[in-house]
Structures are given as C-alpha cells and as structure tokens.
C-alpha cells in the first residue's frame, strides 16, 4: 500500500507493518495507526512514528536504550493487561523527541514512552509512575557526556 509521509515522501508499506494504538498518543487520541520508520544514519535508533491517516503528522522518536542503557520503564498492571503481557520487559519502547531550533534545545520525553507489543504490534503511550525520568529531558546532555569513564 502507498502512503504519503511527512519525511520520506511516498512510501510503500504492508498491513503487517502497522502499529495499532487502541487509544492514540496523548492529545492525538483519534490517531490509531502509525508506521515506525527509521531515519537514515540513525543506526535504527532515530525513527519516526508516521500517522497513516494524517500524512503531515509524524513524531520523531528514539530508542531510549541507546540514550540510556539503564532505562527501566515499569508499567502499571492495568497497562500491561491492556497490552497483553505479564511484564514490562516483554515490550518494546520508544520515546518521543521535541526537535527545537536551535537543535541543542531539543528534548526527549523519557517519562512517557510508547510501549509496543513485539508480536501483535499493539501500542500505547504511558506515563511512568516514577520521578526518575522527565518529560522534557535535554537531548544535548547525551551528546556531551560521552567522556564518562567506562
């Protein structure tokens, strides 16, 4: 199937690629279907959630584990039940970025990841019940702290 996208022009996709949100991302609750498309050069860790129904709607997303290897999202029992898993570790996670100008002001929402069931591709954005993660964590911090000792 063909789809007009925000970043990649017209692309071809298959029904099996679709990620289904029974409830769309916060503030976009009516958007139920997305594709997760990688950007070139991002080593699979910089992607976007492209809406299937709204070509102009796409969220820049990242693999949170590439930013923070110790990232540990824990969902509430009700959220796990809705996604059909027993444990948060069975899910895939992506976090949404706000890309600002200048780009060094960009942030990432570590508190509200999108959790995706790897087989059913059913997804849900959650708000983690922890103070360990922020909704607007400066992305520049990750770029600058690479000198940390191993």
């Amino acid at each position, binding site marked *: 199937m063909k789809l007009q996208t925000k*970043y990649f022009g017209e692309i071809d996709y298959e029904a099996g690629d679709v990620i289904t949100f029974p409830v769309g*991302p*916060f*503030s*976009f609750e009516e958007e139920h279907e997305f594709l997760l498309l990688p*950007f070139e*050069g*991002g*080593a699979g*860790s*910089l992607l*976007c959630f492209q809406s299937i129904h709204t070509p102009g*709607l*796409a*969220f*820049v997303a*990242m*693999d949170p584990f*590439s*930013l923070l290897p110790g990232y540990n999202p824990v969902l509430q029992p009700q959220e796990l039940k809705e996604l059909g898993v027993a444990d948060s570790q069975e899910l895939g996670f992506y976090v*949404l*970025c*706000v*890309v*600002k*100008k*200048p*780009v*060094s002001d*960009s*942030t990432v*929402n570590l*508190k*509200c990841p999108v959790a995706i069931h790897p087989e059913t591709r059913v997804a849900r*954005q959650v*708000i983690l019940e922890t103070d360990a993660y922020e*909704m*607007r964590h400066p*992305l*520049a911090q*990750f*770029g600058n702290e*690479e*000198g940390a000792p*191993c």
Partner: protein
Amino acid sequence: MLILQRKAGESLLIGEDITIRVVSVDGTRVRLAIAAPEDVPILRSELVIAAAANRDSAMEESTPAELLDLLGGVLDKRDGPGAPPET
C-alpha cells in the same frame, strides 16, 4: 491555596456536587475516590503536560538529521566500542 489534612476514609466537598474521598494511604501513594457530575473533566495533571509535549513533538523546528549531529554518534554506540578515551 487551601491546604487540608485528611485521613483514609475521610472526604471533602468542592461546591455542591463534587466529593473527594481518601480511600487509602500507602507510603507515598494516596488513592482518591472522586464523585463529580459527568460534565466535569477530571485529568491527572501530568496527562495535560504529556499532551503538550506530544503537540510540541508533532511540530519540529529543526530537521531530524540535525539531531544526529547534536547527539554525535550516541545512537550508534551500541555497534562500536564506545567513545575514545580522554587524554
């Protein structure tokens, strides 16, 4: 701002038709039961902030490629041995 102390099982009234009862207190977590008319929206406040963050996410001001420059290889560090040692 009015600040009140309530114990589990106690409640308070807002106006004539909103009742908030403390169901239980467990460590740092308080369970509340709210009875209000159907047309009164009740949202966890962080949901409102999360919705605003998402709306900002949908309107990028720079290109995603510029993000890659900002992050300077952080995203593909899984594939390599990591950052070069500092001298």
